[in-house]
Each structure stands twice: as structure tokens, then as C-alpha cells.
């Protein structure tokens, strides 16, 4: 392998893995407003811009709403656009998230999962990103810092193919502020994977046109239909992008990742960093002879229902760990899984809510979840783990 394809390993935090992913993607416009625990992402990017390591315009703006608004303009003008935010910042962006997706702009946003207030909190849970479920953003939940960096590159690949924005999601502190070894591919490898963005439409004053104008009922629905079709296509495009990534970088993640599912009766379903802990627990339980397997869901939007169903077809019972709560119903991943299974499989899907507001999801908590589901036959929609009732 020539030096141009050499790989350097660095010990970096999840936040800085995001920054390096954006650098390797050669983003051209970054617009952001600082918020804990995201700030380090754009801090490093601004430094890269200042020092000339990254040839991008860095826009300081007065709010997250403006950050996304600026990227909508930049992306419409044909630039590869990037931002990062968290929690309340993402909530403030909400209106613009709809706009970016409706305008079919391949913007990539990194969201560091942080609990919503009140009460005030800076620690992780998924309610901020899952509240943006229906904006038209694709969502990728990451488990490791390497996956974070790699997912930024994959995100642009898919976004620019199906013309939809992507949200890369990682846990506050558990990933954002925790350093681990990450391979940095060379720029040449990244360029080979991700060529420059070629927009289909372009905001250009020399060929003036109006974007996003008033659209009457005769046409609006067709545009929504096309957006949904793009989402559906994205399931396949993510798999293609992951496979191409594997060919160049020698790593792949899948949209879902089954672990020790063969011969399992109970399937545990996780997302984000809880997966790593669960993997260890599964190993321990397997060595004790327990028939339990694991499924990590990486892609939340579009939801890879077929892949989830294929894995679940092999088991008798499912336990979903949700680090979020859809108030009035229960865990959001559990609902998605049940919806995917409805009409296909009639097995109990237990919904567990754990780790809200950054409370640790320890091996003990996961063991309790497995024991709880193992010992019961009737489905329970919502089980609170570790709550002092």
C-alpha cells in the first residue's frame, strides 16, 4: 500500500472524530452555534479552517436555527455543508430541519445526544434526536468513535445520492468526551470514496430561480411522495455505501448488526453505546448457557424493517432497551420494532426504558433486563429499569 493510502491511528474523543470525519469529507461550509456537549466538534473545525487544514467557510451564527438556515443556503448554492449541535440546539433547529429535508439538501448534522430540559441536564439520552423523527432527516446512531468518523463519510455518500440530509448521532460524554483509538484514513482514500458534491439544482444568480416557493395542493403531495421514495431508496443506498466503504477502508457496520443470534431464544435490541456493554453481557450469559443474542440498530431513519424482521424471525422473544421515552406510549425503538413485526411475527416484544438523563446502563442493568424478559411470557410494553418507584 502506498503512503497515500496509509492509515494513522490517533486517540481522539467522539467529538473530534466527528471533526476529522468532516475534514476528510472536505466540507465547504460549516455553520454552528456552540452548545455543551457539542462545542468541541466545531471548535476543532474552526481551528482547522483558521490554520488552512480545511478549505471551508466557517460561519459563526447567533442561534442553531440560523446555523441550519445558513447551511440551507450554502447547500442550495452547491456547497458541501456541515453542522453539529445537541439537545436544545437541535430543538431550536426543528423548523429548519423540515426545510432542509423538503428542499432535498444533502446536509450532514452531528447531534450529540443530550437530554432535554427541564430539568436541566447535560448528560445523554435520545429524546432530542428522536423528537426530530419525522423531519425527513436520516438518522444514524453510532457506537464507537471510529464508527462516528466513518459514518460522517458514509452519510455524505448516501445524502448526495438520495438528496436527503443525515443526522449522525452519538452519546454525550460516553462517546463525545471519551477518547479511544481511531484510524484516520488518508485524504486520498477519503476522496476516492467521496468525490466532490454535484448538485442537481443550484442557487445561482446568473440563472435565477425561486426555491421553496408556494406550492399548491395540486403539487405538494407529489413532492412528499418523492421524499418518502427517496427515504425508501436510502435503505439500499446505505447498504451500497457501507459495502463500498468496506472495499476501500476494510470496515463495515451494516444498518443493523446481529451478534450471537444463532440459537438464541431471546433477542436483546440496543442502539448507540449501550450496545458495547450489552455485547459483553451477552458473552457472559452465553458462557453460562443462556440462549440470548443481540441486535444493534444503527440506522433509525429510514427504519430497516426488513433487516430487523429477518433477524427476529430466528428468536422467540424480544427485549428492546430504549434510552428515550415517547411519553404516553413507551420506548421509541420498541414501538418501531413492534410496528415492523406487526403482521409478520407474533412474539412478545418487551420494552425497557433505561439510562435517561445520562444514568449508566451497566452490565447489571442489562442482566436484569434479560432476567426480567426471560422469566415472563406475556409482553410488557413499558418496563422502567432502575427507577425508584
Amino acid at each position, binding site marked *: 500500500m502506498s503512503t497515500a493510502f496509509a492509515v494513522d491511528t490517533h486517540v481522539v474523543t467522539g467529538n473530534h472524530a466527528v471533526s476529522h470525519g468532516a475534514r476528510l469529507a472536505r466540507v465547504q461550509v460549516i455553520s454552528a452555534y456552540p452548545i455543551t456537549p457539542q462545542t468541541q466538534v466545531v471548535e476543532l473545525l474552526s481551528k482547522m479552517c483558521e490554520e488552512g487544514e480545511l478549505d471551508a467557510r466557517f460561519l459563526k451564527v447567533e442561534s442553531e436555527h440560523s446555523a441550519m438556515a445558513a447551511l440551507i443556503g450554502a447547500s442550495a448554492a452547491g456547497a458541501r455543508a456541515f453542522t453539529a449541535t445537541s439537545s436544545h440546539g437541535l430543538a431550536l433547529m426543528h423548523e429548519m430541519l423540515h426545510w432542509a429535508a423538503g428542499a432535498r439538501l444533502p446536509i450532514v448534522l452531528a447531534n450529540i445526544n443530550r437530554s432535554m430540559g427541564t430539568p436541566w441536564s447535560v448528560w445523554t439520552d435520545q429524546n432530542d434526536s428522536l423528537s426530530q423523527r419525522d423531519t425527513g432527516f436520516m438518522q444514524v446512531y453510532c457506537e464507537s468513535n471510529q464508527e462516528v468518523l466513518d459514518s460522517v463519510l458514509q452519510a455524505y455518500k448516501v445524502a448526495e445520492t438520495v*438528496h436527503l440530509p443525515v443526522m449522525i448521532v452519538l452519546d454525550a460524554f460516553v462517546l463525545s468526551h471519551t477518547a479511544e483509538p481511531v484510524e484516520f484514513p488518508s485524504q486520498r482514500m477519503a476522496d476516492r470514496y467521496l468525490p466532490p458534491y454535484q448538485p442537481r439544482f443550484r442557487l445561482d444568480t446568473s440563472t435565477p*430561480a425561486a426555491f421553496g416557493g408556494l406550492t*399548491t395542493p*395540486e*403539487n405538494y403531495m407529489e*413532492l412528499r*411522495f418523492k421524499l418518502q421514495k427517496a427515504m425508501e431508496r436510502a435503505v439500499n443506498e446505505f447498504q451500497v455505501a457501507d459495502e463500498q466503504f468496506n472495499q476501500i477502508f476494510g470496515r463495515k457496520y451494516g444498518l443493523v448488526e446481529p451478534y450471537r443470534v444463532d440459537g438464541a431464544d431471546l433477542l436483546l435490541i440496543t442502539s448507540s453505546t449501550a450496545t458495547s456493554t450489552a455485547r459483553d453481557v451477552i458473552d457472559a450469559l452465553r458462557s453460562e448457557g443462556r440462549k440470548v443474542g443481540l441486535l444493534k440498530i444503527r440506522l433509525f431513519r429510514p427504519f430497516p424493517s426488513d433487516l430487523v424482521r429477518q433477524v427476529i424471525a430466528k428468536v422467540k422473544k424480544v427485549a428492546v432497551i430504549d434510552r428515550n421515552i415517547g411519553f404516553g406510549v413507551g420506548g421509541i425503538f420498541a414501538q418501531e420494532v413492534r410496528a415492523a413485526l406487526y403482521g409478520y411475527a407474533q412474539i412478545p416484544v418487551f420494552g425497557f426504558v433505561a439510562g435517561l438523563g445520562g444514568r449508566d446502563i451497566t452490565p447489571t442493568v442489562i442482566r436484569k433486563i434479560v432476567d426480567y424478559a426471560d422469566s415472563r411470557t406475556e409482553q410488557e410494553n413499558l418496563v422502567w429499569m432502575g427507577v425508584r418507584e
Partner: protein
Amino acid sequence: MSQKIIFPSASDMPSTAISQGDMAFNKTGSWRYLRPLYVEKLAPCRQTCPAGTDLPRMISLITQEKFLEAYSLIRRHNPFPAVTGRVCYHPCETHCSRAPLDGCIPVQALERFVSEKGLEQATIGKVSESQSGSVAIVGSGPAGLTCAYFLIQEGFSVTVIEAEKELGGMLRIGIPAYRLPRKILDQEIESITGFGIETISNCRVGEDVSFESLKRDYDAIFVATGAHRSRSINLGGAVSGLGFLNAVNNGNAPEVGEKVIVIGGGNTAIDAARVALRLGAEPVVVYRRSRQEMPATDEEIHAAEEEGVDLRYLASPDSIVKKDGRLEVTFQGMKLGEMDASGRRRPVPIPDSNFSLEADTIIEAIGERPDLSFLSATDEELSIVIGGDARTGPSTVVNAIASGKQAAASIMHYLQRSGEALTVSPLELSELVTPAQVKLDYFAAQERAVIPRTAAEGRINNFKEIIETFSEAQAVQEAGRCISCGVCNNCDSCWLFCPESAITRVNGGYQINLDYCKGCGICAQECPRGVVSLIEEGI
């Protein structure tokens, strides 16, 4: 054109809502009720300059390295940039909009830089007489020569009459060479008289020639004889500050001995002390109020302190006696009382606080006043204008220049029989840039260049000039810090931010297409220097 489009199927549609042609038919200008206008405004530097020098444009020309153009521009307002570039009290800097960010623009040093380029390179040709009218100017200080400069360029015949041997008035008599080198002064005066001004020196009006004869021989007279009569506390034994400076400045430095006491707190007092220091004495300045009330400029006081001049406050001389060939001054201790008419706290004696100081020389510098005894009571005619310090009492060089300019305008109007004198300058009618219109957020802080100057130890034993001129690189860099308040410098902010793309760049400026300008006001909001104004439509 605007028409309803129904697509046969989703696959015929673009993926997002985008117009199928341009939107030029949609003249959004009809929505407008506010109209943006480019209205250049008065920058605080220019507004506060008594001479009204167009400083923002001078600085802009320096950034473009058009130094001679900058010189011609200054000289349209002020014939003495090499002088004011050294001794002006520079209100332009005090009011500079940049000051709160990272320090004011060193306008004075830039003016000096430009004057140096001008004196080196600019050529001066004689102006031919084109107007009927002869003007006598009594006094060749900054007021007199400024008036002469503007009149000669308008084609009047001008004669300047000076009582002293050389031209320059207070510039030559009162300002020490370490602040204003003689060579520079000579050059600058030549650059004024070179236009064809007739000069007569060693001619004191009232003694060598009568004022009546001037009235007979000239169509108009400008009296700019300055304020040279020193005030005195009449204690005997003291010499006048101005007389002392004049003697030294003309090469007749007196023997001052070891200890010199200077009484007073104005620039003359500080100059006298610093000159005495350079003659080898140990000067002590005694002022009856505190440092805060001193009329001398802070820069001069600070320079004196740096040089080790002993400054003492709150003491007033009571008596002077001769003792063993030396002089002994008894001072009365003072404290500050109520405000007086000048807005400063009045000194009030403290009982039993007398103290004495011995001296070889005592210099009194407690102020000067004009001497207009050569005028007669009937001289109040339109053809006679009195200006400069002769009218106001001791003031600054730049105020004298401003006065000379006004006098020239008055005389021109009088001689051209156009009636009233020009009393309102167009500058006074311009809109001043407000601090809110200057958006400092657009500018990154950048350290102000240090003006090169000789340290105290290198200057206390000579009369060499202390401050040096900026290098070209320094001048261009410092000029580059100028915000150009109120004056468009083609920064493109309006053009960039206009959401309608209704602003186009034309002929080094901008044009707003009112067919599409919605009057949103973003251009006015984003202009970092307050050039774009909004007015209501229909007004």
C-alpha cells in the same frame, strides 16, 4: 411568466419546489415602504477637526499607496500638515470610532507621513492673479499664512507682513525644535509662500508702517497678530515663558543656571521646562491647581514627566526675593475649591502653608494675550477681519488654521461683493455617523502600531525631534485599520447580503434596482460604516 403548472406525474416533477423559469416578472419592489439610499456621512474625525480635513479619504488614499494624492487632498483643507502632523491636539483621534475596539487610528502620525511625502515630492507653481483685489495680512503665523494660502489660490494679490525676522509666528517663536524642527517649518512655509505670496518681514504694523496706510493701500486686511503679550504676576525677577522660548528658538539661549522654576501649567510652561532641561538645568514646574486642571496637553505633560521634569501642584507664588545672587520664591499652598467659570476647580489658599524654593532663573508662563493697540476705535469695517489668537486669545494651531480659512472665505465674499460672508460650512450640514451605525463586530482587533520615538535618556540633552515618521509599511498598515466611518470603501457587504440580489456593482459604487428591492433594510443593517440610510417611501 406566472402561470399554474400541473405536472402529469410525480416523475415529471423536480425533487423540490423550484421555479421553472426566472422570477423576473415578480417585481418585489412593489412591496417596499422603506428605500435604501447611499448617503455618505461625516466621520467623527473629520467632524471634530477644526480645519475640516477630509481624513477618511486621506486614510483611504494611504491604503491605496496614493501618497501624493493624499497630500493634495489634505492641502485642500489645511496648508500645514507637517505642522499639525506634529503639534496638533488631534481631536480626530480622541473621537475615533475604532478607539473602543483596539485603539484609535493614529491619524496625526498618518498626516505627518503624508506631509513628508508631499514636502519631498510635490511641486508648487506660482498662481497667476485672476481676481481684482489686494489683501494685506498682518502676522505670518498659522492663521495669517492659511488665509494667504487660500486667497492666493483664488487669484487675489496677497501681502503678508511679519514683525519678526522670519515667518511663522507662534510656530517659530513658541514651539521648541524637538517638537517641530526648523527645517520642516521652513519647508512648509515655503510650500505656502511659493504660490506667489509677497512677504515683508521685520515690519511691525503700528511702528514700521501704520495701519492707516494699509487701509489705504489694500482692499482688505486680515489681522492675525496672535497673542504674544505675556501675562505677569508682577513679582519682579521673573522672565516670560514666551520670551525665553523665543530666545532659545532663535539661537540666543540665555544662561539659566542650575535651578529653574517655571510658574504655570500650560503648554508654554511645559515647553519652557523641557527647554531649560535641555540647556542643562534642573527645572521645577509649579502649578496652582492639580494635574487634572492643567491646560497643557496630556501628551506634553507625560513627555515632561518621562524626561524627569519635577512637576509640583497646588502652590502659587507669593513673593520673590534676591538672596546671595540667587532668587528665592515663596509659595502659598493651595487646595481645590468650587468650580470656576472655566469648569475647573478653583485654587483656594491654605493658611500657614508657605514654603520656599531657590532658583537661578524663574520663568513665568501663566498665559498670553493679544495686543491690538495698533487698531483704532473706528476700525470696525467689513474690509478688516481679525482672526486666530488675536481674536480668541491663546488657542491651538489647528484653530488658528480654521480661523485663517474662515477669514479667507469672508474676504473672498467681501471682495467679490457677493454680500454676506460664508458663515456655515457645508460640513456642519452633513449627517454625523452615530456609534450605532459603526459595527465594530465586523472588525478584528489588531494592535495599534507604536509610533517610533526616542526614549527620554536620548533626548534630554539635545533639541533633535523626538517622534519619528512612520515607514511606508507602518503607515499603510495603520491606515488599513481605518473603519472609514460614513464613507463607502466598496467593502461589498450590501451587495453580498441583499437577499433579492437587487444591488449591483457599478463604476466603483453600487446601484439598487428598485424594481426588486423590497426595502428589507438588510443592506443598511449590514453596512459596517453607516453609509446606507433608509428613508420612508413617498416622503
